[in-house]
């Protein structure tokens, strides 16, 4: 009897990079898994896929995927990816990075890439903090949540990323969590099929740096919280209402595919 040893996505993973550096309970592995499945299902030749990432835990994603992959500098994944996408429009370019990378240090590039409608698929892994650097607060940390640089709780209004992406001009905008594997994979797949700036936020546990400071428990418990609190509302009209309150358990978290419009794609 022969036993199948080849997994359908093995050829899209850099198995020689394993074991990975991610902590137990981290959601980034699930995101990579979904991304790689989307590559497989897209039917696009893997040679035509490119993965660009920034810095931090999420930024390490590019290193595990067996396509042309570039692990760039903090905040600059988007303009780096723009260079690739504009020079060679035949390529399907995905940017995977964290909320701090894409929205704090890279925030200016984010709004301008969306405004231009550059042909990029952006996956923002939002774990509400700077995980690799040790749990400092970032631009998506909910008010009241604690981080090493806000030991009494964050006081700044966080960005509502789908609202920001839509306002800046993105063609496709979605929010899912690592619990919603199938829907998230479909959103990434939709981004690969669609031309223009496509943005998917994916909420992901960071038990090591964020969860334990905010009584969210292990990764599995944070995912259970998403199961209880998430409401799917595809096409939700009032994106400005979709802020995330992690601290108050009575507040729902709205997920879904919110925007899917046609706009002229930027070609330089």
């Amino acid at each position, binding site marked *: 009897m022969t036993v199948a040893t080849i997994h359908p996505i093995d050829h899209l993973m850099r198995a020689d990079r394993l074991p990975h550096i991610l902590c137990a309970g981290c959601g980034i592995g699930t995101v990579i898994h979904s991304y790689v499945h989307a590559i497989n299902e897209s039917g696009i030749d893997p*040679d035509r896929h490119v993965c660009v990432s920034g810095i931090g835990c999420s930024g390490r994603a590019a290193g595990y995927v067996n396509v042309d992959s570039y692990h760039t500098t903090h905040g600059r994944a988007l303009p780096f990816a723009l260079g*690739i996408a504009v020079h*060679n429009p035949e390529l399907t370019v995905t940017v995977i990075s964290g909320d701090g990378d894409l929205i704090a240090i890279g925030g200016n590039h984010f709004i301008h890439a969306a405004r231009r409608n550059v042909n990029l698929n952006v996956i923002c892994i939002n774990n509400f903090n700077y995980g690799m650097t040790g749990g400092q607060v970032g631009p998506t940390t909910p008010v009241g949540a604690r981080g090493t640089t806000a030991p009494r709780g964050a006081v700044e209004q966080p960005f509502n990323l789908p609202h920001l992406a839509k306002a800046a001009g993105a063609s496709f905008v979605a929010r899912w969590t690592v619990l919603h594997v199938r829907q998230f994979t479909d959103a990434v797949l939709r981004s690969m099929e669609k031309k223009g700036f496509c943005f998917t936020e994916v909420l992901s546990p960071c038990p090591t740096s964020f969860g334990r400071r905010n009584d969210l428990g292990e990764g599995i418990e944070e995912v259970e919280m998403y199961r209880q609190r998430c409401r799917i509302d595809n096409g939700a009209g009032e994106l400005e209402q979709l802020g995330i309150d992690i601290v108050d358990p009575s507040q729902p978290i709205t997920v879904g595919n919110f925007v899917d419009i046609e706009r002229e794609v930027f070609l330089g």
Partner: protein
Amino acid sequence: MLGDHACAEGALAAGLDFFAGYPITPSTEVAEHLARRLPDVGGRFVQMEDELGSIAAIIGASAAGARSFTATSGPGFSLMMENIGLAAMMELPCVIVDVQRASPSTGLPTMVGQSDILQARWGSHGDYGIVAYCPASPQECFELTIAAFNTADRYRIPVLILMDEVIGHMAERVIIPEEQEIDRTERKGPLEPPGAKPFLPYAAEEDLVPRIAHAGDGHKVHMTGLTHDERGYPALTAATHDKLVRRLVDKVRLNAGSIVEFEEIGLDDAETVVIAYGCTARSARRAVREARNDGQKVGLLRPKTIWPFPQTRLQQLLEAGTVTRIVVPEVNLGQLRREVERHTRLPVIGLNHAGGEMPTPAAILEVITS
């Protein structure tokens, strides 16, 4: 033709595919000229949101195989420093022109400076090798920009063109040769087609330069700014780091003999050697000629590559024993003078202005004859 326009034309002659930049005086005419010309030759022009994005975009385009370019001036050059290090570490060729103005900070935006010389060499964090050209005329803006692209591709490095406001805004006749007469160095591509065996994007050859594969070529490369092994995979050890960084420095240092370019006038019997670059070299050339007409043994060494500095030629002169002193006029308070002093115990006399105006031939002549 303006120096800035000649620089843009040089980039086009070199086969420019992709420009990303952010307007800043006195480099703006480079971008404006390319905004007009680049789409006509099938290239892409992007006006970015800032200089950090500009440099990242040209490195990305280079990863996809483009000959890529950006233009800036001092304050924007400072903003590009982190990713110049990324280009050096990823070994992705690209060209950056810095049309220098009087600095620090916003300084004198419309007036000349030469004060980014040391930033060009050392500005990004860490050790790395760099090549910087210093044109002294619009004709050289054209020629050295072509050389910059060739050097970038030859050694897989970011290459700088350190112009200055006077040269950038100077209008002179520029002779543009026929396309077939323009020398183009191609990047060393993979020897085997994709899939034959794993391609190693950082396996250096004898010249210390690895072969390069681009996004979409099918070789599935991984590149990172982290310390990496020959596969491009992160390998965070002291031993890997020392081997990698030493090679990044050595591929410029040990190949300097083929990279360095300079002009010399009357050096063979010179007792006084003037070392000058960019716009200052034009005043210096006239001062040296006048002094020689007057019977004085004066020579000019004009680096066309300010980095690597033509130190071998300087050392040769010093060993000959006739030189008694060196004069270094420049539009800063002594940046290149510091480099020259490193090579000699002879008196090195600076003629300096912090920026805003270049020294006149008379001022240089006065130092020579004093």
